[in-house]
């Protein structure tokens, strides 16, 4: 092999590797400014004017319109509290409380951030519609099979994520005031 051929091969490998690394890093919103709260990830700066280049590139790629800092916060859980990837064959309990917010919603989405079809037609729970205990605490059950109480169905046997949006929350990911204790638990109850 001549030097030219080897160089070309190296360049081609580099191009592939570079683009692959880019796609992999951007798939989750970029490597920076992600805060972890138990099972939840908060893209701290996605909705800020001074978002880092990775966050901006991730937004350009996904087409997502982020929540602004003044509107609220979005948290995404791809794992349970023990760090295990969310599995469509398991039953999860989310609760009992959320960080302070005027309203919140909990949605189940696929890997690209879209709701997953399910026979119950239930894709999201609002804080204003769920059943609660007398003390205001709640449990939302995430499972493929029908569950009593607040049931958020897993529509397909594929990877999924949970999205918690806090509207009009005094918390800001940038301020660091978020307390770990206030994020709802994502507990794996059982697996089929």
């Amino acid at each position, binding site marked *: 092999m001549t030097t030219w051929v080897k160089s070309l091969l190296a360049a081609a490998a*580099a191009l592939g590797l570079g683009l692959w690394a880019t796609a992999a*890093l951007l798939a989750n919103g970029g490597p920076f400014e992600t805060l972890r709260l138990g099972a939840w990830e908060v893209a701290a700066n996605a909705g800020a004017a001074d978002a880092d*280049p990775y966050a901006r*590139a991730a*937004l350009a790629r*996904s087409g997502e319109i982020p929540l602004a800092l003044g509107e609220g916060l979005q948290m995404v859980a791809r794992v349970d509290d023990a760090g295990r990837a969310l599995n469509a064959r398991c039953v999860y309990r989310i609760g009992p409380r959320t960080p302070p917010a005027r309203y919140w919603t909990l*949605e189940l989405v696929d890997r690209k951030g879209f709701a997953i079809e399910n026979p119950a037609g239930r894709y999201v729970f609002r804080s204003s519609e769920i059943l609660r205990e007398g003390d205001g605490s709640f449990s939302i059950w995430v499972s493929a099979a029908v569950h009593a109480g607040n049931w958020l169905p897993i529509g397909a046997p594929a990877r999924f994520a949970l999205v918690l949006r806090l509207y009009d929350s005094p918390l800001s990911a940038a301020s660091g005031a978020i307390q770990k204790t206030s994020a709802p638990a994502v507990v794996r109850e059982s697996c089929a």
Partner: protein
Amino acid sequence: MNFRARYAEAAFYATLAIILAILTHFVAVLTMPLVAERDAYSRLAKLGGPNETVELAQTSPVSRGFPYADPAVATAFCRFDLANGPVRVRAPIGRAGFASLSVHTRRGAVVYAITDRAATHGYMEAVVANAAQLRALVAEDDEDNPSEDLRIVSPTNEGFVLTRVLSELPDLYGEAEAQAKALDCAAEPSGK
């Protein structure tokens, strides 16, 4: 070629490939917002012209509009182009649980956002202008009768305004939609 020389050559090409891969990665990340064709603004531009209020379809498994959009939230937007002068945006508040108005640049970054808590006289209202237009507006201000407008400076001439209206219950989504659709964006008469 002895073993040592071959090893050195392989290491050389591997290093070359890694350096090129890192370069590729940085170039890809930095150019992504400039070349993306599926970013939020490009997609919104296909849905409506400047100052035209367009409602976004409720996100669902069949209507996969914008990723991580909340199915509980009705959304409407209008694009603006400040080359033709400042734009006044107005969104009514109503019975809905939560409503917000946010201003985004051409690149999707959030410039500013207010919620219904900051509404006056039943409206969330702001004048979006570029830096030069803001100076002109300030120069026109009557000192004895100061303007009550909230003025938002957009770093880019093109951008969009979005209103989000949360429905407290699934049955109230239609009401939230009606409120979102009442977003109004109009050229602001400035100067004499």
